[in-house]
C-alpha cells in the first residue's frame, strides 16, 4: 500500500499533495509511537546557502514542524545560535550519535579544500572537504541537497575556478540520496526527510533521485504542451505559448514542477512565461545553456 502513496495519479493532484500525505502519515505513526526523532546535521559548503532559505519556505510540513517534531537539527551554519569554536564542537559532538547528513553546496578541492573553510577546530581550519569526508563516512543516511551538492552545479560551472565537485566525488563508496534543483524545492527535501524518518529510504532511480518527486518529465505534464504539439512557440519572454524555441529545458528535466509548482504552489518558471532552465537536471548550468536565446525564435527574411 504505502509504495503507491502519493506518487501516482489519480491521487489528488493539488499542490503539496505528496508532501502533505507523507506528513499526515508521519503524524499518524508518531501517535502510534513509531515516530523516532532522528538527529539531522545540515552542512552548508561551497554554494549560495539558497537551499536552506528554500527550506524555510516549506509548507506542509513547514520548517518549524521539521525542527520541532521530525528531527533534532544539531548543526546549521545559517540558523544555529552557537558560533565560533563552540559551533564546530557541536558538529563534532553530533557525530557521536546516529545522524542523517544533509549537505548543500559543492565540495571545493582546490588547495586541499582551502577555498571553502567552514570553521575552526583545535586551532586549525576545518575545510568543507574534510567535513564532507568525515561526516559522510559516519552518517546513516546522506542527502545531497541542491545542484551544487548533487553534481557541482553553479559552483562548478566552467572554468570551475574553485575546482568544485559534487558530494559523491568525495564519498565514492557511500550511497547518496540526490535532490537536484537550484535551489531544491522545499517539498522535495521535506518529503524525502519525512520518508526517511518514517519508513527509511525512499525508492530512487538509478541516479539516486527519489522517484516520488523526480520521475516525470516536465514536458509530459506541462500545461503548454498542446502549443508544443501544434508548433506554436513563444518568440519572447512573457508570451503565453510553448517556450521551446527560447530554450526550454522542460523536455529533458524530470521534476513535479508543472503539477506542484513552487512557493506553496503559487507559480513556477514556465508559469512566469519563462523557459525552464533545467536547474534540477544533472549538468546544470553548463549543459543547460543557453538559458534564453532569441536568435532561434525569429525568422530573418533577408539572410
Amino acid at each position, binding site marked *: 500500500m504505502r509504495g503507491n502513496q502519493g506518487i501516482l495519479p489519480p491521487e489528488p493532484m493539488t499542490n503539496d499533495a505528496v508532501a502533505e500525505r507523507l506528513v499526515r502519515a508521519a503524524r499518524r505513526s508518531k501517535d502510534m509511537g513509531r515516530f523516532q526523532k532522528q538527529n539531522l546535521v545540515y552542512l552548508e559548503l561551497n554554494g549560495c546557502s539558497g537551499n536552506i532559505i*528554500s527550506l524555510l519556505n516549506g509548507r506542509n510540513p513547514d520548517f518549524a514542524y521539521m525542527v520541532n517534531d521530525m528531527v533534532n537539527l544539531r548543526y546549521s551554519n545559517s540558523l544555529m545560535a552557537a558560533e565560533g569554536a563552540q559551533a564546530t564542537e557541536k558538529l563534532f559532538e553530533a557525530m557521536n550519535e546516529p545522524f542523517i547528513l544533509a549537505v548543500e553546496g559543492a565540495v571545493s578541492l582546490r588547495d586541499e579544500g582551502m577555498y571553502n573553510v567552514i570553521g575552526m577546530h583545535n586551532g586549525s581550519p576545518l575545510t568543507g572537504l574534510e567535513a564532507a569526508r568525515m561526516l559522510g563516512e559516519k552518517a546513516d543516511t546522506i542527502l545531497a541537497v541542491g545542484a551544487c551538492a548533487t553534481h557541482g552545479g553553479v559552483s562548478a560551472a566552467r572554468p570551475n575556478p574553485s575546482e568544485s565537485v559534487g558530494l559523491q566525488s568525495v564519498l565514492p563508496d557511500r550511497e547518496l540520496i540526490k535532490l537536484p534543483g537550484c535551489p531544491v524545492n522545499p517539498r522535495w527535501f521535506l518529503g524525502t526527510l519525512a520518508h526517511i524518518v518514517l519508513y527509511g529510504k525512499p525508492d530512487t532511480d538509478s541516479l539516486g533521485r527519489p522517484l516520488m518527486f523526480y520521475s516525470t518529465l516536465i514536458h509530459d505534464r506541462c500545461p503548454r504542451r498542446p502549443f508544443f504539439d501544434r508548433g506554436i512557440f513563444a518568440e519572447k*519572454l512573457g508570451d503565453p505559448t510553448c517556450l521551446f524555441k527560447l530554450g526550454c529545458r522542460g523536455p529533458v528535466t524530470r521534476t513535479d514542477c508543472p503539477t506542484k509548482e513552487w*512557493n506553496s504552489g503559487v507559480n513556477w518558471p514556465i508559469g512566469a512565461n*519563462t523557459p525552464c532552465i533545467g536547474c534540477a537536471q544533472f549538468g546544470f548550468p553548463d549543459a543547460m545553456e543557453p538559458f534564453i536565446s532569441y536568435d532561434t525564435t525569429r525568422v530573418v527574411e533577408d539572410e
Partner: protein
Amino acid sequence: MSKRIVVNPLTRISGFMEVDVKVENGQVVDAQTKGNMFRGFEQMLMGRSPFDAVYFTQRICGICSAAHSMASSLALEDALNIEPMEQGRYLRDIIHCCEFLQNHIRHFYQYTLPDFVKIEQNPLFQADHTDFRVPAAATAQLSRHYFESLTISRRCHEMLAILGGKAPHNHGVFVGGVTTKATAEVVAGLSSILTEVTAFIEEKMVPDVYEIARYYPEYYRLGGGYGNLMTYGAFDRYRELGTLYVDPLVWTRDGKEPFDERKITENIDRAWYRGAKNTYEPDEEMPEPDRKKASAYSFVKAPRYDGLPMEVGPLARLILSGDYTNGVSAMDRTIARAIEALKIAGIMKTLLGELIPDTDVQAEYTLPETTAQGRGLTDTTRGGLGHWLKLKDRKLSFYQIITPSTWDFSPADDRGFRGVGEEALMGTPVQNPDEPVEIGRILRSFDPCMSCATHVSVSGKPVKTIRVF
C-alpha cells in the same frame, strides 16, 4: 595584556566568515574580517550568453538572489540601450520589495534574535554565553514570534513567486522589467498577502526590536564605525511618482552630497592580488591574484568612494532619506532594518496601486554586432550593488560585481583605512574573551552576506596554499 580572539564560523549569516580580533585591556584594538569561501563568478560568466547573466548571477546568493537579477538586468539594459516601460519598472521593483521584506524579516528573527534571546528548548538554539537579559514572559513571546515570522517570510517569497515564478532564484525579473503581467488576480493576491505581512511588521517586528533595545542599551553606543554613509538610490526617480524612498546620496564628514558613480574604485593593497598599481576602476580588468602577497590578508577587494570606506544598508538609507536621525550604532542598524521593512511595505502598496492591468512589458531583444558595455547600480537589501559588464561577439567578455557586503566587509586599504565592519569593532569592550558575544552582535547588525562578498574573480595559475591566518 593582549589576547587574540578568532570567531570561525560566524554563524547566522549567509556564507562563511572569520573574524580575527586583538583585545587589549578588555577592548578591541585591531580587527580583521575574512571571507572563507570562493567560487569565482566573474570568471565563470566569461563567454556565456549575455541574457543568461540575469539567472546565473542570482546563484551568487540564496537570500538576496533577486538583487542580482535586478542589477544584471539594469546593466544589460544599459548595454543594449533599452529603456524599460514605467510599468515594467514598477513590477520589477515590486519583486524587489518582496525580497526586502523576506530578507529583513529573516535577518531579524532567524539571524539576529538568537543573539539576544534564548529561544525555547531546541538543540538548534543552545548558546554558549549567558548574557540573556530579556525577562521570561517577553522571551516566551519573542520565541513565539520567531516561529510566526517563518510563516510571514514564507509569504513574502510567495508574493515574489507570484510575479517571479519561484524564489529563491526567480525567473521573472528580466531586461525590460518582468516577464509576467499584472492581472487583477495577481494584484489582489499580492495586496492580500501584503496586508498580512504589513500587520506583522507593524504589530510584532517593530515593537520586538525596541523590546530588545530596552534590555541592551549599550549597543546604541557600540559598533558605530566611520559614519560615512552611501546609497545608490532605492525606489527613486520614477517618471511620474518621483522618489518614493531615497535618491543616490553620500554622507561624509563634509556633509551630504549627490552620489557620483565615477568616484568608485577598488583597492587591492591588502588583498591577494598582484598588480602594477593598487587602485582600479570598476570596469577595468583586475590583476592576477597572488596568495603569497605578504601585506595582504583577504580575497575581498576594498571598494572605496572618493578614497573613503562607506557604510551601506538600511541605516545608511534611512539617515540619507531623512527618515531616521538617532545615530549610527549596532542597535540603530538593527532598528533601521525593521523600520525600513515597514517603509518598503508602504512603497510596495503604492506601486501596486499604479499598475495598469495586463500590460506586456517584454519585447524580443537583439544583441549588438559590435562591442557594448553597461552597468547596473541599485540599492538592495544590504546596500548598494553594482554589476559592470562588457559584450563582444554577442558573448560576455567582462563582468565585475561589487556587492554591499564587499563595501561593509572590505579589508584595509593603502591609506590605512580599515573596512567598515572592522572599524565598527574598534574599541568594543569584550566582557569575556571566551564568550565574545559582542563581536557577533555588532557584525550581524550589518547583515553580512559572505556568499556575495567572496564571489571574487580569480584567473591564472592556481594558488598554492591559503592559510586562514
